């Protein structure tokens, strides 16, 4: 299993980097889809099948398609982007290193987790259980999430509508 984890992790990080370094946004998007799939693989390793499915549907299916459409809509599928100036790139690299250093240092410095992992034995992540938790304990946030989605849909429609300034 550990081997699998390492392979998946390598894919995840690698495609993430490729997403960033690809000149062409389309390529970026494709690498990102790969990245999401690898994350879904992680979810499957956790035995969270439902989440993995949802993840693939939402991210790879919905979000990334949306992005690809946008890219195509804007006709950005070429490598025309000017790269940032050298100072900005250096600054980005430095802050990346710094952030990684700080976060890793924090986690390393933090108290080590216990390794005798509890196994309740009870099912906690099947669709049935998740559904119960979601609609019993988290009923109100769930409804709010739906409202949020509705609002964002309306907002997106309004924003992308063509404005007639000179009427």
């Amino acid at each position: 299993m550990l081997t699998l984890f390492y392979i998946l992790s390598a894919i995840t990080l690698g495609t993430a980097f490729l997403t960033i370094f690809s000149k062409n946004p389309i390529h970026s998007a494709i690498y990102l889809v790969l990245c999401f799939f690898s994350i879904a693989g992680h979810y499957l390793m956790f035995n969270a099948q439902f989440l993995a499915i949802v993840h693939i549907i939402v991210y790879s299916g919905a979000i990334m398609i949306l992005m690809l459409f946008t890219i195509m809509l804007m006709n950005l599928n070429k490598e025309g982007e000017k790269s940032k100036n050298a100072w900005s790139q250096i600054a980005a690299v430095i802050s990346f290193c710094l952030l990684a250093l700080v976060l890793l240092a924090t986690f390393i410095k933090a108290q080590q987790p216990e390794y005798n992992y509890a196994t309740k034995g009870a099912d906690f992540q099947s669709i049935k259980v998740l559904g119960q938790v979601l609609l019993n304990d988290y009923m109100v946030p769930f409804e709010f999430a739906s409202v949020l989605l509705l609002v964002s849909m309306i907002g997106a429609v309004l924003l992308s509508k063509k404005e007639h300034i000179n009427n």
Partner: protein
Amino acid sequence: MENILEQIGIDNYIYLSTLLFCVGAFGVLYRRNAIVMFMSIEIMLNAVNLLLVAFSTYHQDAAGQVFVFFSMAVAAAEVAVGLAILVAVYRNIKNIDIDNLKKLKG
């Protein structure tokens, strides 16, 4: 059912998520294309989601996974609105290079 973490260890997931998050942040800083920056943000969100699921398993508690659902919902909403804004911006200045969006200065 045996716990997957017994074989891999929670700390590996922590490091993975951290790195993934940093990569996302790096992407935001490194690129000027707004859409790629959005993708980087998605990477960061996913890093967090991954960690949430890992801890959900660690604690054997469904709440973490529920939270990931919400996070996904928010991400979807965010992308929808964000892309709409980008489209609007693109209509006005004909590109989405964030270095050109400097009107909001003091």
